[in-house]
C-alpha cells in the first residue's frame, strides 16, 4: 500500500479554521501542527512529514469526511457489572474471576448498583434523556475471551439517549479564542467487557486471562457529527475529562480504561454518504487523530484513483502510521440479539415517581443523582475565565494537566500577586519545567507555597523578574531552600538604595545627550555594573532624569 501523499494545501492554523468555519474539514492535507496542541495538553498532534505537492492533483474536488465514534469506558467500581469479583488493572491471571465470569453453568448475573449510578451520572452530564426503563440483551459471537459465547449489553433500550458533548476547538483570529462545537450523543449503554487474549504465535495458541471479563463498561455512541481527527481527538479528550471529574471512569487510554473505535467515510458535499470503514485498536488520543486523518486521506486517494472503499474493519499500525485491513474479521456479523432472559427490566425513578416505603438500596433516584453531580469541566473553565480574567485557552490548559488546577488554586490562595501573574508563571514557567523533565504535577520539586513566596517577592519588587526566574531554577534543584534563602544567598535583591543607583548611573554616562536610543545601552551598562540587582525600570527613570537635566 503506497503511503499517502500529504498535500500541503494549508498551514495547520488555516486548516483548523476550515474545520470551524465550514463545519467540515476538507481533505486537503493533514494538520501540520495545529494550535489545539495547547488544548490537548500532554498529547500533541504528531508532526506529519511534509511531502510538498505544489500543484493540486487533477480532478481534486471538495471532499467532506464523516466520523462517528464508539467509545468504551471502563466503569470505576470495586466489583464487576454482574458479579462480585474485583475490578483491578493488574493481578495474577484469572485470579479476579468468579464462576459467573467463567460462565460456568448454573450461574446468574446480578446487577451492580454502582454501575447503574455511574451510567446515570454520565448520562446526566452529557445532557441525555435517562430512560426510566431500560433492557438488557445478549449479543452472540464466538471468541475465546468471551466464555459465555455472548456479551450482555443494552441494544434495544439503553439507559440513556439523545445527549450532547460540547468541546472547544482553538481557532479564530484572536489569540486564545475557543470556539465551542457540539457532537450529539446517540446513546449510552451498560455492557460487559471481555477477557484478554495474549497471542502466542510461536506455539500457535492464545492464552486467555479472564480478569477483565465481566467488568462494567459504558459504551458512549456519538453521532457522526465529527469531520476530522482533530475534532475527534478533542471531543474524546473532553469526554475523558468529564468521566474523570464525575469519577465514573478513570478513562486512562494507556491502561485500556478508555477505548475508541472510529467509523469513517468520505463523500462530496451534497451527495449521499460514502461506504464507511471501522478503525480499531486506537489506544491514545494522539493516534486517534492520526489514524482518522490517515484513513480519510486513504479513502480520498482510493476514490480519486477510481477505486472503491470496502466496508471493512481496519487496525491502526502505530509504527507505520497507517491503517491496515483486519482480514480475519468476517465482513458481516450476525449477533443474533435476544433479550437477556435472566434480567428483568431496569427501572429508575425520580422524585415524583419514587415508590413509597421502598428500600433505598434497591431504588435509584435520578433527581438525587443529579443533585450530587460535581462541577463539570466546562463550568469550571468558565468560572476560571470570569474569576481570574484568563484567556479561555489558558483554562483549557489548566484543566488538561492532572493536578495543575489544584496547584494553581493553592498558589492563588497563598500569594498576594495578581491572578494574571500567577496564571502566567504557572502555565509558562512551571509547566515548561515540568514538560522538559516529563514530570507530573505531583512530582514537582516546587510546592505551591514556594511559588507563592517567590511571587510575593516579585510582587513587592524585592527581586526583578529575571532574578525570579533564577530563583525558580534554583528551587527546581530540590536543595530544600526557600525562595527567601536563595535570594539572600545569591544576593539577588534589587537595590533599594536609590542614591547608590544614581551614582552608578552618573559613572556610566557618556555625554550622549539627546540620543534616546543610547539610553538602552546605558541601561545595559548600569545593569552590568550593579550585577543585575537593579530594577531596569528604575534605572531608566533615573537616567532619563539625569540626561534631561
Amino acid at each position, binding site marked *: 500500500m503506497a503511503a499517502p501523499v500529504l498535500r500541503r494545501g494549508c498551514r495547520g492554523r488555516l486548516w483548523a479554521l476550515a474545520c470551524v468555519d465550514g463545519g467540515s474539514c476538507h481533505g486537503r492535507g493533514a494538520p501540520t501542527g495545529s494550535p489545539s496542541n495547547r488544548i490537548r495538553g500532554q498529547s500533541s498532534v504528531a508532526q506529519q512529514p511534509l511531502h510538498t505537492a505544489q500543484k493540486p492533483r487533477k480532478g481534486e474536488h471538495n471532499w467532506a469526511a464523516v466520523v462517528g465514534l464508539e467509545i468504551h469506558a471502563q466503569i470505576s467500581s470495586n466489583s464487576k457489572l454482574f458479579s462480585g469479583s474485583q475490578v483491578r488493572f493488574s493481578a495474577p491471571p484469572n485470579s479476579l474471576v468468579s464462576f459467573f465470569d467463567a460462565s460456568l453453568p448454573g450461574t446468574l448475573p446480578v446487577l451492580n448498583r454502582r454501575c447503574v449510578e455511574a451510567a446515570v451520572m454520565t448520562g446526566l452530564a452529557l445532557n441525555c434523556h435517562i430512560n426510566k426503563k431500560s433492557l438488557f440483551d445478549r449479543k452472540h459471537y*464466538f471468541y475465546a475471551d468471551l466464555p459465555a459465547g455472548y456479551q450482555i449489553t443494552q441494544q434495544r433500550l439503553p439507559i440513556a439517549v439523545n445527549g450532547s458533548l460540547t468541546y472547544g476547538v482553538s481557532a479564530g483570529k484572536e489569540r486564545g479564542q475557543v470556539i465551542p462545537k457540539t457532537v450529539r450523543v446517540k446513546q449510552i449503554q451498560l455492557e460487559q467487557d471481555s477477557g484478554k487474549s495474549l497471542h502466542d504465535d510461536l506455539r500457535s495458541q492464545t492464552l486467555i486471562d479472564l480478569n477483565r471479563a465481566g467488568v462494567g463498561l459504558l459504551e458512549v455512541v456519538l453521532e457522526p457529527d465529527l469531520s476530522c481527527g482533530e475534532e475527534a481527538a478533542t471531543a474524546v479528550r473532553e469526554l475523558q475529562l468529564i468521566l474523570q471529574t464525575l469519577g465514573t471512569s478513570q478513562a486512562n487510554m494507556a491502561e485500556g480504561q478508555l477505548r475508541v473505535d472510529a467509523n469513517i467515510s468520505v463523500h462530496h458535499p451534497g451527495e449521499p454518504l460514502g461506504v464507511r470503514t471501522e478503525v480499531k485498536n486506537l489506544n491514545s488520543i494522539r493516534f486517534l487523530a492520526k489514524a482518522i486523518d490517515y484513513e480519510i486521506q486513504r479513502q480520498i486517494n482510493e476514490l480519486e484513483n477510481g477505486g472503491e472503499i470496502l466496508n471493512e474493519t481496519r487496525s491502526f499500525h502505530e509504527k507505520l502510521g497507517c491503517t491496515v485491513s483486519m482480514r480475519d474479521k468476517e465482513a458481516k456479523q450476525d449477533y443474533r440479539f435476544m433479550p437477556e432472559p435472566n*434480567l428483568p427490566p431496569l427501572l429508575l425513578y425520580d422524585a415524583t415517581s419514587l415508590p413509597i416505603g421502598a428500600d433505598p438500596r434497591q431504588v435509584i433516584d435520578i433527581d438525587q443523582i443529579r443533585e450530587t453531580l460535581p462541577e463539570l469541566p466546562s463550568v469550571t473553565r468558565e468560572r476560571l475565565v470570569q474569576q481570574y480574567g484568563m484567556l479561555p485557552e489558558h483554562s483549557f490548559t489548566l484543566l488538561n494537566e492532572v493536578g495543575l488546577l489544584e496547584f494553581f488554586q493553592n498558589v492563588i490562595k497563598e500569594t498576594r500577586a495578581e491572578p494574571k501573574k500567577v496564571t502566567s508563571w504557572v502555565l509558562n514557567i512551571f509547566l515548561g519545567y515540568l514538560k522538559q523533565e516529563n514530570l507530573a504535577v505531583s512530582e514537582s520539586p516546587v510546592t505551591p507555597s514556594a511559588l507563592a513566596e517567590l511571587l510575593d517577592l516579585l510582587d513587592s519588587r524585592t527581586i526583578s523578574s529575571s532574578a525570579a526566574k533564577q530563583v525558580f531554577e534554583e528551587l527546581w534543584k530540590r536543595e530544600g531552600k526557600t525562595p527567601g534563602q536563595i535570594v539572600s544567598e545569591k544576593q539577588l535583591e534589587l537595590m533599594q538604595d536609590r542614591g547608590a543607583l544614581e551614582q552608578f548611573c552618573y559613572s556610566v554616562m557618556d555625554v550622549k545627550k539627546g540620543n534616546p536610543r543610547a539610553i538602552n545601552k546605558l541601561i545595559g551598562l548600569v545593569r552590568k555594573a550593579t550585577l543585575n540587582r537593579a530594577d531596569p525600570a528604575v534605572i531608566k527613570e533615573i537616567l532619563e532624569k539625569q540626561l534631561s537635566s
Partner: protein
Amino acid sequence: MWARALWLGLRAPLGGPRGFTSKTDLQGSGRITAEMIEHLERLALVDFGSREAVARLEKAIAFADRLRAVDTDGVEPMESVLEDRCLYLRSDNVVEGNCADELLQNSHRVVEEYFVAPPGNIPLPKLDEQEPFPHS
C-alpha cells in the same frame, strides 16, 4: 401430510418480527436453502448432518409459524416473563474471585494460570469442501 399443508395455508403474511432484525428470517417458501444451513451452522455451531435434520427444522419453523395466526395488533410484546419482577441491585463489594486453581481445572490445556485456546477462530470448512449429503 395434509396437516402440514393446512398449517402452511393458515400462515398469515409475514408481519415482520418486532425489536430485533435477524438474518435468519425465512423467505416465506418454507424451504430452507443450503446457504441458510451453512449460515446457521456457523452462527450456532450446530451440525445439520443429514437431510432428516433439515426437515425437522422446517417442521419446527412451520409449527411455530402458527403464532402468526394470532392477531397481535396494538398488543405490546412480552419480552420476558420476568417483566413484573424487581431487578435486584447488588452493592458494590468484592465477594468473589481468587479461585483460579478451581477454574483452571476445567480447562483441557493450561499454561501458567492462563487458559489455552487456539489462535483465533477456527474457520468451518466451506460448503463445497464439506461432505455433500443428499438433497431431496
